């Protein structure tokens, strides 16, 4: 015992001595106030999106939006949402007078690869901000990296509660909504549409996002009087969901909730529709399917199967406010088709970052973070929005959508059923599903 103690003591004192010795001057980078302080006439942003792997198409759309945003920031194009943005700091002369350059990388939708790619942008290309991504695992991993490296992370598409919940970071900001907000927005609409007395059967992707999505939606619907009959976890690698869908009809449930995203969502939805669930009557009611998180790009993969199925989305191109219209116009004219919600959130995040730099008059992450915290704005497509100081989550209205019955084009897959106001989806920062973890202090690196 005593032996162990002394060894521990030695190790410990070693660490302390080491800490005292730490950082001889040669190891500090020369004279920068923060990581990658831009010195010349340009500033570099890093766009880290999935270019290979199952989310490559969403990644490509995000990249289009980033390019568009950079073009607008540098004064090119028609200015897009810069004209409708409530903050008027952006003049089309880059950020703080520096021309905006960008580098791109491939996350492969793997946390390792995403971090490697982000690291190379920071270490090699001198990026002061990293943005993009199409899954929560990647977002959380890259957010952690940016915190350690001392750059700002403007999350792309990430829907898990954890990104601004237990894994929130001072250098990370999320404009996209989350599972909790989806649930809060959907539940009243579902109640209105399908009634109070419903029995729900959940199929849930067996990993972090799936669990948090399931927990949120189950809690929200149960509060409206629904019962959760069963919750079955499905392995991530499942491609054929028949054995999970088959028992649903016989379970007494009259609603099927698919807590799936991406390929999982397409396949489980296709299975459910193939089994003819939607034509059936259970407990004297029409059987219905709910997909809490919709993505238009993904919904296209499911084809006609999505018709009439409810879900939520962060933004949709058919919105008619000035900001959305301006964005759809400049995106559509440049690329020939309307932008996805992933593209929208990435474009908005880039503008928000640029604007925060202008207002803070610095690229220093701590200054930028301070400018973003509690920032209230409008005109970026979601109505009045606020970056909450406590968890760096944007609060805004949430769209409840359903698969369109008579689409006029291949892009016209979803229609907006209701815009749930912000007050209904807002939760306290210490909500049970967001507990644990803390922002920590902003890290300027260097």
């Amino acid at each position, binding site marked *: 015992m005593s032996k162990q103690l002394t060894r521990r003591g030695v190790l410990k004192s070693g660490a302390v001595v080491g800490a005292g010795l730490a950082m001889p001057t040669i190891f500090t980078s020369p004279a920068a106030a923060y990581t990658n302080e831009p010195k010349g006439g340009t500033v570099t942003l890093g766009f880290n999106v999935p270019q290979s792997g199952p989310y490559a198409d969403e990644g490509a759309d995000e990249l289009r939006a980033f390019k568009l945003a950079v073009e607008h920031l540098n004064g090119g194009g028609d200015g897009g949402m810069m004209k409708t943005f409530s903050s008027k700091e952006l003049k089309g002369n880059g950020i703080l007078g520096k021309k905006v350059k960008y580098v791109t990388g491939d996350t492969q939708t793997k946390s390792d690869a995403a971090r490697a790619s982000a690291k190379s942008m920071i*270490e090699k290309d001198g990026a002061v901000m990293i943005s993009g991504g199409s899954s*929560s*695992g990647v977002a959380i991993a890259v957010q952690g990296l940016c915190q350690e490296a001392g750059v700002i992370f403007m999350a792309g598409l990430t829907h898990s509660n954890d990104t601004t919940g237990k894994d929130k970071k001072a250098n990370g900001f999320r404009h996209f909504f989350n599972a909790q907000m989806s649930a809060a927005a959907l539940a009243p609409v579902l109640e209105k549409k399908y009634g109070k007395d419903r029995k729900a059967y959940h199929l849930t992707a067996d990993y972090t996002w799936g669990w948090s999505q399931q927990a949120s939606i189950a809690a929200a619907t149960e509060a409206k009087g629904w019962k959760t009959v069963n919750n079955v976890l499905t392995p991530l690698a499942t491609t054929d969901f028949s054995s999970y869908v088959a028992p649903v009809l016989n379970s007494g449930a009259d609603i099927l909730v698919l807590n799936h995203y991406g390929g999982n969502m397409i396949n489980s939805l296709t299975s459910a529709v193939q089994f003819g669930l939607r034509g059936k009557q259970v407990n004297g009611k029409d059987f219905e399917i709910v997909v809490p998180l919709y993505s238009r790009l993904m919904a296209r993969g499911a084809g006609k199967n999505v018709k009439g199925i409810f879900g939520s989305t962060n933004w949709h191109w058919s919105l008619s406010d000035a900001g959305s219209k301006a964005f759809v116009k400049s995106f559509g004219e440049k690329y020939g088709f309307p932008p996805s919600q992933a593209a929208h959130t990435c474009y908005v995040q880039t503008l928000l970052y640029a604007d925060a730099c202008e207002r803070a008059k610095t690229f220093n992450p701590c200054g930028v973070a301070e400018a973003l915290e509690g920032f209230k704005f409008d005109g970026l497509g979601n109505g009045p929005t606020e970056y909450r100081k406590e968890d760096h989550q944007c609060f805004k209205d949430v769209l409840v959508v359903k698969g369109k019955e008579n689409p006029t084009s291949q892009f016209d897959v979803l229609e907006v059923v209701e815009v749930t106001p912000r007050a209904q989806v807002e939760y306290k920062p210490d909500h049970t599903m967001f507990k644990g973890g803390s922002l920590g202090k902003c890290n300027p690196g260097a």
Partner: protein
Amino acid sequence: MIDKLQNNDRMLMTLFTLMVLAGPILLAPFGAGYPDLLQRFCIFGIFAIGFNILFGLTGYLSFGHAAFLGVGSYSAVWMFKLLTMNVIPALILAVVIAGLFSLLIGFISLRRSGIYFSILTLAFAQMSFSLAYSVLTPITNGETGLQLTLNDPRILDGANTTGSLPSTNFFGLTMNSTAKFDFLGMVLQFNVGFYFCAVMLILAFYLAMRIFRSPFGLMLKAIKTNQNRLNYTGVNTRPYTLAAFVISGMYAGLAGGLMACTDPLAGAERMQWTASGEVVLMTILGGAGTLLGPVLGAGFIKYFENIFSKINDNVLHSWFSFLPDGLEDLIVWVLHFFVGKGWHLTLGLLFMMVVIFLPGGLLQGASHIIDWIRGKKQSSSTQISNPNSMPAE
């Protein structure tokens, strides 16, 4: 020349050491001289060297080695969370746990050989991945990956009062500190983490060389060429293969531990079978059964993944802007399938070429070229024994 080098250990070792230590200078002109990629070169070099001890020497093709890498990473991160941010205990635990895990899997899988062995290792690795991704989330933090948090105990380091995450360190030298120098318009980055990994790589290489030259290594080569004869020569092949399996598993664990040291996060994807496939690609691409080959292959693939994949259309256009517009567009259009997001395609084609035409890997190709330049027409292919035959039962 490379063959000669392969046989002159002292020269090989010296040259290797110098090249690795000078990495930040040598690779800077190729855009690869930044710490993260340099660290990856070393880490995957170690991984591939270890894999080569199993595959290159005994011929047992494992499709599940990434599992050991993942286990190593998880162990190291847990050590950072619980004990101390010093890398040494983390690495020790990573190697030990990976060793134990490979002992277990090896003990079962090595009861079979040939493709049956490959499928068994694949099955184990896929199981490990599935479990780490979902069921074992309390230990692995699932999809997100295991990360450090502010309220980890870290018994030896004492309470954290800074409000920011501590860095991994080697008795006080933090892994992520970097000295930068401007040199001929390039920024040379000398990073502590890289040099730590580099020393590990050199040690790992040295150990592999000793194994290659030892009676034990000779026995492993004998297993690959004729297991039957070896049995009738009074040698029990099972413990030899198992030892090779465990050694290569420990190499993988070391690599995984180092990954956590340079970047304290452990994700489940690094255990997926495609990650195991990647180390197979590295080893074959470089040259299985050779000493230098796997390191070369690892460097090659990581360079592709990190540099080649970043060449987007803009970059291409800037390269070919001297050409007339139509021609420029045509060339860019053709190339854009192969670079940037098309890098997997190029990698796949290259890999096929190597398997078809250069069974000895790029190393063999390099020695062909050197021989050709020196006007020596004689082929060196007889020197490199066929590296890919599978063991007999």
